[in-house]
Structures are given as structure tokens and as C-alpha cells.
């Protein structure tokens, strides 16, 4: 047992506390914030290095042995998610220094960001379903405040929709946890896995399936799948760009993570029912997201709808539930978090240069004409999102499509390919309108107006994230091998159960509790 699995929660929380203590000095806050984000990345890399060997790290909080205490578990999937959260967090914090306005920063912007990261990392590492609920609430509460901080009208309207839908989701999650405890008598996820198998053997499988559907709806709202995604495009384009990037990269993926976790570890007994629904949901999410994007003319709203369509790909992998498909899901999440956060960061720079995020209006200057480097940095994540080789998105889609072909799910292959093509259409639309086009005579701003210079603090995170995207694309093999390792662990719940509960639970036996 080591303290490593809980450090990614403690470090952001500690950073947030330090930031609040030093709230009078903005410089101190920024220094602490960046240092905390770097520390989180270092710990996440250490965690990944440990889990890359196939080891599953566990920590029983307070020394209460599982399943009685609260357990933290870091398997390969959890560890890679923590690293992605840490990298996104660092990129966003650095970007925020140069881009977020002073009043927001004074209102504890940095501590809130770190509390959000603590919640996200906690959700990835907890081994307890109720603790997952608590982590969700931590990240939700800080996201509520980050979303509405600034109190602009659009923000408040978006925040009400976002908060309401997420609170309904939380109420369903809470009810489902209660029912699960009532049915299976435990909250520890590994123990739940064992107990669920027992319940099915005793002929109580239908109750477990009902609870599974409650979880699917609750996590589905958080992951923004069809038909529960309407809160996302109504809110993600309202806060500052740095906040949007953080949300776009991480929040829906926490929902996807939760779906992957419970539908590979606990609810795997009636896959003909639950996973067929997931399959339908995946296809409809892909299609409705990409069609929604085609109708939009606001930079971030286009990107928001693309989050939805990309979520569909990730769900597709879990729904197919083969080793290759789940590896595809893991790979897709790795690719997607980096790309999506980066696109929102680039949107911020483009907004700064053009003076508007509206794609139907000419900006004050063309981005390509005044800052070709920025335009190039947009191309990397945009083409990766559409799945153009050799970038990361190509491999992610290739693995999933290959997995679907193996399962002879040709309809889903067709949908995935078509949606990829339409994503390319959306990205070229953004490229043409926001980056390529220069305002003609009589359009745009005053003559002779030039774009403000983009600070290096905004460009550096974008460049690093774009380099990661290209790196995953060119060196896909290690990432793929890691995804296969993670998928192997996910599809063999016994590994997880033994790591948490010990050898006594290697084969389903009667539980310890009365």
C-alpha cells in the first residue's frame, strides 16, 4: 500500500487552500497555482509509471480495510485519466495567467480551478460508488462557480441550465446509489462487482439491471449523450475560454469514465440489454452531435456540439465490449481530451485576434493573414478531431472501426465514418471563416486596425498540446499498448476485485458482512 493513489486529490486541494490563504496577492496565487499544477503532473506521471507494469495500486483510507473503509484504486485506466487531467489542468492554468481577466482572478479563480481538478482526479481514483458521488459534487460545485463567475447575462442563463440538469443527474445518481446499497449491501465498487454476480446467480438480476439503467441515465447526463446533452451547448460557450477548455476537456469525460467503470466492472450480466442500449445511444449521440454542429455559426458552439458527437465514439467502444473496442475507447479518450481542450484554447486566441467568435461575421483581421502560426496550431487539433492521418484522432477512430468490423456491426462502422467526414466539414468551415478569410473592403473593423499580439503564455500551452497530439499520432504504439493493458484490466473485473479485496474474493464466495 502506498500513498500515491491519493496524492492527485491532495495536491490540488492543498494548492487550492494555499491559493485561498494568499488571496490578497495575485502573484502569489499564480505562482502557487502553476507550481501545484506542475506537481500534479509529476505525481500523475509517477502513478502512470507504476500502473504501466499492470500493477493496481490501492489505498484504504484511515486503515479501514476494504470493503468497510473508503478505498482509492489506481489501475491503468484511472492513472492515464489522472495524467490527462493533470496535463489539461497545467495547460489551462498557464493559459489563464495571460488570458483571464483581473476581477475573475481576484474572485478565487485559481483555487476554484484546483478544487475542480481535485474532484476530477478523485472521481478517477475512488473505488467507492458513494465517494464517486462526492467527487462528482466537488467538481460540479466548483464548475458551477467557475461557469457563473463574472455574472454576465449569457453566463447566468447558461449556468441555470447547466446547474439544473446536473442537479437532476446528481439526484438520480444518489437514488441509484441508495438502491444499489439496498440491493447489494455494499458501496465498494470491487465488492459490488462480486455481490452483483451473486445477486444474478440468485435470480435477482432484474433488480440489478434496473439500478444499472438509473446509473446509465445519471452518467449519461454528465457525459452529454443523446438525448440528454442539451445543457452542454447551452452553457459551454459562455464562460472565459480557459474555463471552457477545462470543462470541454475534462467534465464530460468524467461521465464517460463513470460509464466505462460501472459498465465493465459491476453491470456486466445483462449485456444483451444494457450494452445494446449503449450501442444505440452511441450511434445517435455521434449523429445528433455532428448534425447540431453543422447548424451552428459560433466558434465555441460548433466545438461544443463536436464534444457530443465525439462522446458517441467513446460510448461505442464500451458498448461493443470487446478487448479491442475498450482499448479503442481508452485511446479515444486520451486523444480527445488533449485535442478538445486545445481547440477551445485556440478559439480564445482566434477570438482575441478577430474580435469576435461569430463565424458568419468577418472579424477585424484574418487570423491566417496576421498570425499564420496560430492558424497552423489550429490545424493540428482540428484535423486530429476529424481523424486525418497521421494525427492521434486517426488511430483512435481506426481502432474503434476495426473493433466494430470484427463484431460485424457494419451500421456503426458506417455511422462512425460518416460522422468523421462531417467533422471534417465542420472543421473546414471554421478554418475558412475564422482563419482563412480576411475582411474585405468596407467590412470588419476600422482601416489600419491591427490585431493585438498574442502573449506567449497563451501560445505555449496550445503548442505543447498540439505537440502531444502529433506525438500520439506519430508514436501511437506505446499509447495503444497501454490502452490494451487498461482494457484488459477493465474487462477482467477479477483483477480489480483481487487488488482491492484480496485473494479471498478471487472466486465469488459469501461476503463478510451479515
Amino acid at each position, binding site marked *: 500500500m502506498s500513498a500515491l493513489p491519493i496524492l492527485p486529490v491532495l495536491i490540488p486541494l492543498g494548492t487550492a487552500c494555499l491559493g485561498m490563504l494568499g488571496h490578497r496577492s495575485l502573484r502569489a496565487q499564480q505562482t502557487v497555482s502553476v507550481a501545484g499544477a506542475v506537481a500534479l503532473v509529476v505525481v500523475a506521471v509517477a502513478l502512470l509509471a507504476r500502473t504501466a507494469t499492470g500493477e493496481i495500486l490501492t489505498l484504504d483510507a484511515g486503515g479501514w480495510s476494504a470493503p468497510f473503509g473508503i478505498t482509492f484504486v489506481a489501475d491503468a485506466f484511472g492513472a492515464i485519466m489522472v495524467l490527462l487531467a493533470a496535463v489539461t489542468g497545467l495547460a489551462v492554468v498557464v493559459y489563464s495567467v495571460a488570458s483571464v481577466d483581473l476581477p475573475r482572478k481576484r474572485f478565487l479563480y485559481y483555487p476554484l480551478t484546483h478544487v475542480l481538478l481535485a474532484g476530477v482526479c478523485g472521481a478517477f481514483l475512488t473505488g467507492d460508488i458513494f465517494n464517486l458521488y462526492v467527487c462528482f459534487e466537488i467538481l460540479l460545485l466548483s464548475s458551477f462557480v467557475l461557469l457563473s463567475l463574472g*455574472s454576465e447575462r449569457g453566463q*447566468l*442563463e447558461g449556468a441555470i441550465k447547466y*446547474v439544473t440538469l446536473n442537479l437532476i443527474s446528481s*439526484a438520480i445518481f444518489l437514488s441509484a446509489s441508495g438502491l444499489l*446499497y*439496498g440491493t447489494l449491501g455494499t458501496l465498494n465498487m470491487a465488492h459490488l462487482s462480486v455481490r452483483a454476480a451473486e445477486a444474478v446467480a440468485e435470480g435477482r438480476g432484474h433488480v440489478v439491471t434496473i439500478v444499472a439503467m438509473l446509473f446509465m441515465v445519471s452518467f449519461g447526463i454528465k457525459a452529454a449523450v443523446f438525448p440528454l446533452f442539451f445543457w452542454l451547448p*447551452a452553457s459551454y460557450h459562455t464562460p472565459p475560454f480557459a474555463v471552457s477548455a477545462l470543462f470541454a476537456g475534462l467534465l464530460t469525460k468524467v461521465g464517460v469514465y463513470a460509464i466505462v467503470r460501472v459498465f465493465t466492472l459491476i453491470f456486466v450480466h445483462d449485456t444483451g440489454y444494457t450494452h445494446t442500449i449503449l450501442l444505440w445511444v452511441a450511434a445517435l449521440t455521434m449523429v445528433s452531435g455532428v448534425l447540431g454542429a453543422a447548424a451552428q455559426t459560433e466558434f465555441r458552439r460548433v466545438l461544443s456540439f463536436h464534444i457530443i458527437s465525439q462522446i458517441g465514439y467513446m460510448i461505442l467502444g464500451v458498448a461493443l465490449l470487446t478487448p479491442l473496442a475498450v482499448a479503442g475507447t481508452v485511446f479515444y479518450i486520451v486523444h480527445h481530451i488533449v485535442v478538445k481542450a486545445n481547440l477551445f484554447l485556440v478559439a480564445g486566441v482566434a477570438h482575441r485576434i478577430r474580435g469576435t467568435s461569430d463565424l458568419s461575421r468577418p472579424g477585424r483581421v484574418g487570423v491566417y493573414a496576421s498570425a499564420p502560426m496560430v492558424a497552423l496550431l489550429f490545424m493540428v487539433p482540428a484535423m486530429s478531431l476529424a481523424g486525418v492521418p497521421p494525427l492521434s484522432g486517426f488511430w483512435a477512430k481506426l481502432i474503434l472501426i476495426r473493433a466494430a468490423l470484427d463484431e460485424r456491426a457494419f451500421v456503426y462502422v458506417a455511422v462512425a465514418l460518416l460522422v468523421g467526414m462531417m467533422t471534417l466539414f465542420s472543421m473546414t468551415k471554421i478554418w475558412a471563416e475564422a482563419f482563412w478569410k480576411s475582411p474585405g473592403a468596407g467590412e470588419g473593423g476600422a482601416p489600419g486596425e491591427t490585431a493585438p499580439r498574442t502573449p506567449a503564455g497563451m501560445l505555449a500551452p496550445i503548442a505543447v498540446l498540439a505537440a502531444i497530439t502529433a506525438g500520439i499520432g506519430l508514436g501511437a504504439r506505446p499509447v495503444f499498448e497501454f490502452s490494451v493493458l487498461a482494457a484488459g484490466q477493465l474487462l477482467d473485473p477479477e483483477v480489480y476485485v483481487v487488488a482491492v479485496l484480496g485473494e479471498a474474493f478471487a472466486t465469488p464466495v459469501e461476503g463478510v458482512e451479515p
Partner: protein
Amino acid sequence: MKLLLALLVGGLFAAGMYLIVRRSIVKLIMGLILLSHGANLLIFASGGLVRAQAPLVEAGALAPEQPHADPVPQALILTAIVIGFGVMAFMMVLVSRAYRAVGTDDTEEFTGTDH
């Protein structure tokens, strides 16, 4: 008692959802409060209703005397109530700010972010 609680939970959920789909943001808050109360009561009921003593372990004993109440659902509800309290406090401030910014409590007018 079980039936009564089941009806109560169902009633709270139904009333909560009804209020949420109304057009007023004040009723929206009421609805969310009822919904979270419904969820809390559901946990309480699903933990099992027994007329029993507190789950205290006597000195020297290894387990509490049967029958005893299950403490876990109560701990869960306590946590959920505290979280719900914080969320609701935030929600009220948010709604009052939104009311001042938009000038109405009719959600039909909250269309600034829809296009």
C-alpha cells in the same frame, strides 16, 4: 410504513419534476429541493426499516447486538444533506443574480444562449 415511505418518495419526485418543468425559476429551486429530499428518503427506505437499537458495540463484544439499525444509509444521507445544502445555497444566489440580469423569472425568456 414501507408503503407510506414509498408513496412519499414517489410523491416528492413527482412534485419535484413537476415544479422543475414549470416556467418559473423560483419553482425550479423548489422542485430541486423536493427532488433531493426524495432521493434522501429513498436511501433511508432502501437501507431497510427495522425497529431496532443503535448499532453500538458493547465493550468486549465484536459485533453490535441484533437487531440493530444499519448506520451506513444514515451516514450517506447526512453527507447528501450537507452537499445539497451547499448546492441549494449556490442555486439561490445564482437564480437571484439571473433574475436581476434577465429581469424576469420566466424561463421562456432565458434564450440568450440558445442561438
